[in-house]
């Protein structure tokens, strides 16, 4: 069988168009009932693919995409917040270190001052005690000297009396004591 006869066959069998069609459109097989049937078939395909397949699948896909997008955004925010907190913490630590340093400096300064003051006060106190002691010692010494002098005078008189008792009468004795007392 050669090609021209094949072509002839094709045109011949083309005449077996479905009933209810006529003319060129009929030759091409167009038939409104079949057209509607195919339209319904394809309509159902669209409906099923849309409602049962694409809606859930693409919906899940989109939901996941949006969720991932949000998560990434949120992660960025959290990272930023974390960095902020870290920076704040660092700042606070730095500030507290400075404050602590300042406190230590101030405390040591105050300690030094207090120490100096205490030493000064102690020195003054000791000087005062020393001078008082000196004064007391001086007066004690004065008093002791006086007592010694009296004691010595009494002793001397006693000795002199013992020596002179025999030679002096009552009168002379009284005079001598008087003179003695005067010279003391």
């Amino acid at each position, binding site marked *: 069988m050669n090609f021209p006869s094949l072509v002839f066959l094709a045109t011949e069998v083309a005449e077996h168009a*479905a009933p*209810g069609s006529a003319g060129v459109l009929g030759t091409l*097989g167009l038939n409104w009932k079949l057209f509607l*049937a195919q339209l319904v*078939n*394809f309509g159902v395909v669209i409906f*099923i693919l849309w409602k*049962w397949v694409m809606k859930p699948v693409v*919906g899940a896909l989109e939901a996941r995409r949006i*969720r991932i997008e949000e998560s990434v955004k949120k992660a960025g925010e959290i990272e930023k917040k974390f960095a902020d907190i870290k920076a704040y913490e660092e700042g606070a630590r730095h500030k507290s270190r400075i404050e602590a340093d300042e406190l230590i400096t101030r405390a040591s300064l105050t300690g030094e001052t207090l120490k100096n003051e205490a030493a000064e006060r102690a020195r003054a106190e000791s000087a005062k005690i020393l001078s008082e002691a000196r004064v007391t010692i001086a007066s004690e010494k004065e008093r002791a000297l006086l007592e010694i002098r009296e004691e010595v005078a009494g002793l001397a008189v006693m000795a002199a009396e013992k020596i002179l008792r025999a030679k002096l009468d009552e009168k002379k004795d009284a005079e001598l004591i008087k003179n003695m007392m005067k010279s003391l």
Partner: protein
Amino acid sequence: MIFAIPPLAAETIFRIGPILVTNAYINSTIVLALFIALGLVLRKRSGEIPDKIQNFAESIFEVCLGYVDQVTKDRRKSIKFLPIVGSLFFFILISNWIGIFPGIGSIGRYLPIHGEIELVPLFRPANTDLNMTLAMAILGIGATHIFGILAIGFWKYANKFVKLGDIWRSFRKGGMSIFVAFVEFGVGLIEIFSEVAKVVSLSLRLFGNVFAGEVLLTVMASLIAFIIPLPFIFLEILVGFIQALVFSMLVLVFLSIATMEVQTARH
């Protein structure tokens, strides 16, 4: 006769009341059944953590959405158009590829045709029926108009075709703009014809390609049954994919053009 070149029109196998059941219609119903099965498998799968089947479906639609995005440049539009464009693509692809299966075009009934008993194939690729391709083209182009109206409003959309609004505005301006408005009015009328041409070209392109492929395969198989038809079968696999892509991409482009705002001409 040991083989029959398929006729242009799909052959009636039987009828259910007033409904003619042709061999191409049987095939489109088989494809429909496949999609129903797929739908039943996938309808409850929208979990946050996908299982294997959902994962597979998602990976396919992810790729599809990526391609649609390249045309629409807008994810929301892509999601709106995907049901139409995706259905067209997958339906055409699956029906074309099913047409290559052994048994399609060769298993049949002996029916009397023009007084002769001839083998009428029980299955015939769905897209070798002009009714099928025309139905898809009309649905596709009809969808572009519906989406267009929904996107920019009825009056603005109608003004793409019947530019009475432009004429009215031009009278206010006067002068040369009146002439331009009338020319544009004529262009608008041509647009109406181009919409019809879109339907015709879409449906005839697909029908012609798939039908020619079917004829080619029949002829090749009847000349030499072994080895020789194989490259042609591979060719048909490719053609089936390309035609599905061309049809759906064209509808997608028409959809995105229809939903664009019209730039009102400044004269």
